[in-house]
């Protein structure tokens, strides 16, 4: 049985491209173009992945078993059925969560050193202390 690890030190750090792809797939399965759009939108257009970077990252994530190709194909009327959809595995979710915690811990350190202030949205929602 696979065990779930959530401690950031238990998984190696991820590259930004890998982390962005994992985050894009956190909401559900997507194809390559949708992943690229999601990454661009979530970063305010600052990161636009090229086909080489995106599929190189996907290849490595597949090899690491952090994502898998989905067997289900979309309705041909709604989308191009040749597109390949990918989804997170438990291992991918665990790695993304660990990386997010690692970022959060680093942000907390930066906040304590007064390099950054409290995020307005998080403060309003009573989120991160």
């Amino acid at each position, binding site marked *: 049985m696979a065990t779930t690890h959530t401690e950031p030190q238990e998984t190696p750090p991820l590259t930004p491209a890998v982390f962005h792809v994992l985050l894009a797939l956190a909401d559900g399965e997507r*194809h*390559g*173009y*949708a992943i*690229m*759009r999601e990454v661009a939108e979530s970063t305010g257009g600052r990161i*636009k992945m*090229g*086909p*080489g*970077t*995106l*599929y*190189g990252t*996907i*290849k490595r994530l597949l090899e690491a078993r952090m994502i898998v190709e989905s067997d289900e194909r979309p309705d041909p009327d*709604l*989308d*191009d059925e*040749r*597109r*390949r959809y990918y989804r997170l595995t438990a291992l991918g979710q665990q790695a993304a969560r660990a990386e997010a915690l690692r970022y959060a811990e680093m942000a907390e350190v930066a906040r304590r050193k007064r390099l950054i202030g409290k995020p307005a949205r998080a403060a309003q929602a009573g989120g991160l202390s």
Partner: protein
Amino acid sequence: MTPAPTQPDSKAVALSGRLFQRLLAAYPKAHRREYGPAMAQLFRDQCRDAWRAGRGWGLTWLWLRVLPDLVKTSVVEHLSTLKERITMLERLGMLLRPRSAPWLVFSGVFILEFCFVVATTTLITFIMPESYAGTSKILLRPQAAPAPRYTEAKPFASADDSPLIQSQLEVVKSDAVLNKVIEELDLNNAWGRKLLNGERLSTPETLAILKHNLVMRPLRNTGLIEIRAFSDNPVEASDLANAVVRSYCAHGSRMPAAGTGGLALPGVRPASIQTIQTAVPGPRPVRPNKPLNIVLGIVGGLLLASVIGGGLAGLAACLGRKARAAGTHG
């Protein structure tokens, strides 16, 4: 979520797509085969977005962004492929290096290789169809010369006897002689039953098979011609050889005298033909030669196993030295 193209792509978008497809050749073959179509599709989608956003300028900006990405990632993929190959070699090295000593590698490989070669040779030898031989011999006496005894040393040593043997050998091999054999033994039907499930063979077909199964040769300096027939049946093999002799003797008795034309040229017509040896069914097959094949298999196995075992033991020793050196420096 996905922009389904509702109108045909502009020429610039289509051209960009085709150009990108060509540029995919920069990636390793395996990567291209696996992800090439998806990458091309993604780029076409990006082209449509860029065209909608900024027409020509949008496409230009896209190319300026994608080209460095393509160069960088193609290099990365090639390096990754190279690394995989090196890893495989290292794994092979681990496989050979282990359990240490090269002599152990040599012993293991030697035993495996030797057993494999001997087992294969033996198996093939016993699978091969068996073939029996029937052998007859005839003695030709030349004209105008005292009849020599075939047991005498070199009774046909003179150069004048050679044309007789050669010409008579051709007569023995001739269709006229062999057709009589086919007729006498009813080979069209007999071999038809054996080879074509009862369907009768034509005479040319039977003749071709018969010629393939016959070996005729002169025995040097004796005036003898040896006729050897091969078959999977020992009785049939001897019947074939004897039938060829009978047919040839009958044909010889009908040959015209010297100087009257045909094959009976001066010096090439025998005065008499005598059957020296009649073929009898052989007790054991002549092909395959099982003892010889097995001995050859053992010798070949020893040689091959020594070469391969020695080579791999050398490689193991070399890898072991490298590993020790790396361990010392590391």
